[in-house]
């Protein structure tokens, strides 16, 4: 019985230390050292939160750059319920053949490719792979540089502005590899689209 009481007392001490003191200490440090990051890297426009640097949003209007497909439900880029598609590599719903009515299976890669082509019939090139595959989180804020370049002509046409102008905005929204070697160079879609909106004002 002495063992049980020792175990209970150690559990209480450790719970206070690791379950209360530790998270509060880290919160205090984080809030004072990195206030913006600690609170979600939120973007505020005219006093209203327009999103977070870190969390992607759904775009399907031709005049915006599109983010990667998102598998969250009940709507794409639902930040309250992150999720990947978890489709296996041989699952017909992943790549997608035709369904009973001759249309590509909804939400599949084929479906996405035909939507991209429909939005920009003039474009004949193949679709960058990341732009047609769902991210792991369903909230990926980024696309590859190739995926951004694929969309420049469409966005410029839809907005009636010069492609070079859009190109320079893409460059500004691009993050290179971190410290030169880590990760992939990527374009933040939300920041890019917000800068497009600024332009048209």
């Amino acid at each position, binding site marked *: 019985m002495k063992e049980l009481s020792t175990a209970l007392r150690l*559990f209480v001490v450790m719970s206070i230390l690791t379950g209360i003191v530790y998270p509060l*200490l880290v919160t205090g440090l984080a809030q004072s050292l990195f206030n913006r990051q600690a609170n979600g890297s939120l973007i505020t426009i005219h006093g209203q939160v327009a999103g977070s640097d870190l969390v992607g949003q759904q775009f399907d209007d031709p005049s915006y750059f599109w983010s990667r497909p998102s598998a969250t439900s009940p709507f794409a880029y639902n930040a309250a319920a992150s999720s990947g598609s978890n489709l296996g*590599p041989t699952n017909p719903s992943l790549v997608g053949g035709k369904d009973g009515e001759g249309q590509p299976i909804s939400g599949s890669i084929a479906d996405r490719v035909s939507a991209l082509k429909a939005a920009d019939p003039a474009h004949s090139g193949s679709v960058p792979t990341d732009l047609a595959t769902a991210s792991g989180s369903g909230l990926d804020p980024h696309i590859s540089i190739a995926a951004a370049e694929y969309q420049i002509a469409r966005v410029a046409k839809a907005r009636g502005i010069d492609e070079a102008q859009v190109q320079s905005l893409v460059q500004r929204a691009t993050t290179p590899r971190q410290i030169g070697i880590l990760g992939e160079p990527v374009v933040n879609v939300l920041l890019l689209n917000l800068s497009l909106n600024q332009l048209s004002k």
Partner: protein
Amino acid sequence: MDGWIQVILYFALLLVCAKPLGLYIAKVMDGEQTWLTPILGWLEKLTYRLIGTKPEQEQSWKSYAVSILLFNLIGALVVYGIQRLQGVLPINPSQLASISPDSSLNTAISFATNTNWQGYGGESTMSTLTQMFALGVQNFLSAATGIAVLVALIRGLRGKETTKLGNAWADLTRSVLYVLLPLSILLSIALVSQGVVQTFNDPAKAQLVQATTDSDGNSVTQQTIPLGPVASQVAIKQLGTNGGGYYNTNSAHPIENPTPLSNLLQCLAILLIPAALCITFGQMVKDRRQGWALLAAMTFLLAAFTIPTIFAEQSGNPAFTHAGLSSTANWEGKEARFGIASSALWATATTAASNGSVNSMHDSYTPLGGLMPMILMQLGEVVFGGVGSGLYGMLIFAIMAVFVSGLMVGRTPEYLGKKIEPFEMKMASLVILIPCCLVLLATAISLVVGAGQSSMSNPGAHGFSQLLYNYSSMGNNNGSAFAGFSANVPFHNLLGGVVMWLSRFWLIIPVLAIAGSLGRKKLVPSSSGTLPTHTPLFIGLLCSVVLIVGALTFIPALALGPIVEHLQMGGTR
């Protein structure tokens, strides 16, 4: 090419950091003074006074085992209780309801056993209080338990005719105070600098730039972004090889793992303590070469599984280019900022260690890319493995390896001057066989009663892979998943709970029994007939034993899942 540079950088950093940390942990666990003693010594002494123990009061293996089991049982019960009462408890900004009995039980066992299997989606299920005070605490305590049991085994190996294995309470306290807490504080702050949130604010509500529609056709104009004390939890989730994410998609979530640098730090943290403990072991048995030999074996095995995983994911899915995509590279389920090599590296690191956090969705990996993480778990979580538990598992395999070589030359096998006799071999066999049996039996039972099939979300061979992966994960206390599988149903919650509990504590008991038995033996001086256990020959032997046991046990099952699927995918070329 850039991907490979990142992989090399990762391994280099890991090995560089392992040595100083390992030597430091050896000092801590032997109760010596370190540079943190002046800062934290009073807290350690206060803890001993509050709980009524002294570190000099050493325990026998049975008493040590009882202490560890009681302590973990209390942990599991408290986590269960908090989840069941979550709805009426405070610090619940998203007003989440209490959790069902079967899911609470599964999660309680999952976090107490260092598995951190998650049948639930964090942001939509667990209140801030539950995350921080139930799950977060277990992240520390289950890791400390692993270190304690490992250190007890080392004391048995180095002890001379003694029944004393140390004081479990002191070992737990020291692991938390001097190792896990300081490292977690440092890592948390580094992660916050990269964008991981740490706040008690309500969820942020953002006005969408372009409104969208939900699956019922209703207009959606707002995005709710759950926040919380995420960084503090993510730091210990990685350092303690726990792996339970704050958010559903774990470290794929851009708030849980925002940048390539946060990704590197987290991935390093996964293997940091397991690697360092090899050095700790060498230092504590006063023969550092022994520790380096085990670390070399682990590193070799991890590299041998990482390289093919990266190749498999980079060469990807041949159907992609047929559908009009620019490359076959498997981006499905991966985040753009990390890239394919870093995602695949994480997949093998997290399954080599019994961590189980993910930065990409393993369910969407190519058949061979998904096969590698699956095997790494099935090897018994000894390639780095969990904090403490990986090394005590590997030491059991080392005992098995000297036994096999002893059989070949007809001598009584010895390890570190201790004769390995029938009792040790019986216990070692239990440690190796129990997880194998649990995985295969649970998979088979699920199929026979139909609960396996009804939870599969993918058709064909991949569906079976999902089931096999998930019980491989629970049966080896890993916690990663082929996450499309509907695991949060009473059948899998209960069966999985049993599997996780047995594979943790049915191993800890025989490991401590071996420690007790070895401790009582006298040291035999090594002779010309003794097999040295720090040479490349022994490293090769050890790796072979690990691989052969795993392969003999699991290749038939793997043939029905990922191997068949690979052949099917090739057939679509």
